[in-house]
């Protein structure tokens, strides 16, 4: 096949449209642009928060003001004007909602367009959804089922009102406000998010899911998620995200904290499909996210699975602090970048307890003019006897104008630890492509097939409903890219 044809296919890929780029006209309640202590107080007041939480926010804000934005990641973007952002935007509520009938029809329509039905009758069986639009939780489904098991799954704001002791105990216990620039910012201005508590010995019978949507213009999204798995509990949690197409960049700086107590297991899966910007690199979401899990108890386990296809910029390192003895951390990631997208993503595994184990499997796929970096840290502390880590970070390049990079940091201070890191960088082989074509499969389908095969190890870790969505997303994002 000629070079030209290949180029045409590449061209086509780079013009693939973003499916979720619509904007909904929903009546909004917004704060004025800009950030200062008054705005922080405004947010806190809007949410009717207790004094301690306001203090928490103010402390974080004051700390943030002294911090500098990190610049070590392999990403380039014009300086963010933090005074040109709206820090609070919520769909206007007329009164407390009693049933779905009272939800703004525009809003319901929005979620229907996203393929997320908030109507329990129509929902995919077995997934409870908390829908967060512009940082405010609008609806949580399956409350009754969850209540039967004493599982708390609600918006963060509700949790602050109804379960203050739990929030106070665990908030910032994994990601302190001083952790990093974006975590400090989030701690000051977070507007909502999901809260989940699985009591002792409870296996959550359904998948829990939060669906995030940025809608309003000039609005930053700063949601906060806190998941606590009490002793011997299990939960699988899913997160999905989309945003409208806009010419300006939108900032998303979320914090997710997970605490797993003794024998608890938490699985956290993300399909991130924020608006990536257009093919010239205009617009798109700046995604600066801090996700960290603490395996606090012995024999606990936290597993992160992510499929990253969206955002103009991704800066995100879901991590595990393996404090309890015999605890386990896992990170499975597929990150796809196209056009002018930039991703600097990976994981941190901090081994503190004895016999702790971690696994990192990362598959990066770069196309167009994008740059895709894996950055990860594996650290074994002095006392972490018999710690084990295995990392594999593979990169696939589609086309000769993109970049694929790998930056692993490996530190061991324990002689009984065994750490292995492997990485390869390659492109789809001409032989594989020709083999598929010879069987009658066109180039586009062949690439979709090969890339999905390449990412299979990770996709297999996703819950069924998500895996199908993720596979389609991969095929769409990369349809036909070949160099």
């Amino acid at each position, binding site marked *: 096949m000629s070079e030209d044809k290949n180029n045409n296919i590449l061209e086509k890929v780079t013009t693939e449209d973003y499916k979720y780029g619509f904007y909904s006209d929903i009546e909004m309640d917004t704060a004025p642009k800009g950030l200062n202590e008054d705005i922080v107080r405004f947010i806190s007041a809007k949410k009717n928060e207790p004094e301690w939480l306001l203090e928490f926010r103010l402390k974080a804000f004051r700390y943030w003001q002294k911090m500098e934005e990190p610049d070590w990641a392999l990403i380039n973007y014009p300086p963010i004007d933090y005074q040109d952002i709206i820090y609070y935007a919520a769909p206007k509520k007329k009164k407390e909602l009693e049933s779905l009938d009272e939800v703004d029809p525009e809003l319901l329509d929005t979620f229907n367009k996203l393929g997320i039905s908030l109507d329990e009758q129509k929902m995919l069986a077995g997934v409870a959804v908390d829908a967060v639009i512009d940082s405010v939780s609008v609806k949580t489904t399956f409350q009754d089922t969850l209540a039967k098991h004493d599982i708390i799954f609600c918006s963060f704001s509700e949790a602050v009102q109804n379960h203050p002791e739990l929030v106070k105990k665990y908030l910032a216990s994994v990601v302190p406000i001083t952790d990093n620039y974006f975590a400090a910012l989030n701690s000051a201005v977070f507007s909502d998010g999901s809260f989940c508590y699985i009591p002792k010995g409870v296996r959550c019978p359904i998948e829990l899911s939060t669906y995030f949507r940025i809608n309003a213009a000039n609005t930053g999204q700063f949601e906060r998620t806190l998941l606590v798995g009490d002793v011997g509990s299990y939960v699988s949690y899913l997160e999905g995200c989309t945003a409208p197409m806009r010419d300006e960049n939108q900032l998303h700086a979320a914090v997710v904290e997970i605490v797993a107590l003794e024998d608890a297991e938490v699985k956290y899966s993300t399909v991130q499909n924020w608006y990536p910007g257009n093919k010239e690199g205009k617009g798109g979401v700046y995604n600066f996210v801090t996700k960290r899990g603490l395996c606090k108890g012995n024999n606990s386990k936290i597993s992160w699975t992510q499929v990253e296809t969206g955002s103009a910029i991704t800066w995100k390192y879901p991590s595990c602090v393996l404090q309890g003895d015999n605890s386990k951390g896992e990170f499975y990631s597929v990150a796809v970048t196209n056009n002018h997208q930039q991703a600097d993503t990976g994981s941190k595994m901090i081994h503190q307890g004895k016999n702790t184990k971690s696994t990192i499997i990362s598959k990066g796929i770069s196309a167009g003019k994008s740059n895709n970096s894996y950055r990860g840290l594996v650290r074994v502390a002095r006392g972490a006897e018999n710690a084990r880590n295995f990392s594999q970070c593979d990169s696939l390049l589609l086309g000769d104008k993109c970049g694929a990079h*790998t930056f692993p940091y*490996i530190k061991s201070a324990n002689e009984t630890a065994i750490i292995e890191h492997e990485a390869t960088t390659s492109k789809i082989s001409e032989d594989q492509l020709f083999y598929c074509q010879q069987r009658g499969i066109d180039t586009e389908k062949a690439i979709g097939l090969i890339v999905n095969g390449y990412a299979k190890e990770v996709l297999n870790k996703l819950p069924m409903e998500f895996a199908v969505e993720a596979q389609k997303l991969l095929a769409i994002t990369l349809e036909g890219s070949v*160099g």
Partner: protein
Amino acid sequence: MQKTETAYMPLESSLINVFDQHQKELFDASHPKVSHSRAEAIEFLKEKGLPTRKNEKWKNSPFPKQYEKDYLIDIPSATYDKNVNEIFHCEVHGFEAHTYSLLNGWYYSPEEKQLETLENGVVVGSMRKAQSKYPELFAKYYGTMANHQQDGFAAANTALFRDGIFIYVPDDVEVENTMQLIKMINREEPLMVHSRNLIILGKNSKLTFMHCDDSVNHYSSFINTLTEVYINENAYFDLYKLQNINDNTSLLNNTFFQQERNSRLRVNVLSLNGGKIRNELHVDLMGEYAEADLNGVYLMDKQQHIDNQVFVNHAKPNCYSNELFKGVLDEEASGIFNGYIFVARDAQKTNAFQRNNNILMTPKAVIDTMPFLEIYADDVKCSHGATIGQLDNEAMFYLMQRGISKADSRLLLMYAFLAEVTTKVSIDALRNNYEDMIKRRLRGELSICERCVLHCSTPDKPVEFEIDMSKI
């Protein structure tokens, strides 16, 4: 931001003061190009200072701690009154080498031998002399490989160096005998030396070069060496770095290579002993089909520190690079490995590989390894791997079950672990010496040598294990 004078660390102040005091002398003895870069470099040093741990590339380095110490920075050259062999004796058996030496940073030889032209046209001698005798040749290459503004050390070297070795191998000349450079420090006061070397290989030429850093006593010193190597088309440069310095010495070895089309470079770094050692290898592959094979072995104990920074820049298509660094860290030793492969946008058909394997022997030894890849071309084969682990318990048991003592089993397995790298040394006699040294080092017999490490192995006193390695 300009550093204010009070913000300087003692070492930084000393470096700047010495420059200011000896400015005229330094400029008078230099080629205009050297003078120009000295002026630029000292400005850089004044502005940025020496690298701190805030600098990503020096993050976990213990070098910045040395800035609090005061070193004697500049001493006049010693008159040649003793044959170098009287200070330091070195011979390698079954292996012809021409030996050249630097004493306290100065080229050490009788006056008439300060710059020699050998029969085959090879020029070898003092950097100081070379810049006045061959100004054009010198200026064509000097400063073109190294970035003297890379950091404060490169700048300090550029601003303050007095001497070093200069080698020029003309086109089509294959130098038969290995050239060996012995760098010695022999002062009782803590001394910091800046030596600067320039090695130029013409087209189709070949040179084997051994670069030895040795201590002749136990006194503290700080060696800041910068070497530039130009490898022209189809030339082959085989470099051996042997490092066996005392525990009070800090050694910074910064080497910049530029490779042209079809050229080959092979480096073997053997770090046996030293307080703090940092080796930086910067390889620019500037012509197609160039090959770089970079290998290292390190064996550290006590509170020693080893840092290997290896940067390979694939600027052109069809090049090959391979990095293999293996090390054992015992007692409270610490180590850093940072491999960095950069593949430029158009460097298609690049093959670049990188591997770093470490064994930690004790609960107090630490290692940081960072094998990085930054790739902008799609038709490439690149991989890296890193491991940190310990000796295989099963293998230990297997050996002990065959009656081998625990200590010997440990030695054997460590030796076997490192042998993968040493087998890459192509000169038989040298490989045997390497292997002997590693064996001795593993047995703790090779603490700081009073003389050249290579002399440790003599035919009448061969170093052997009690057990026959070949039967394992």
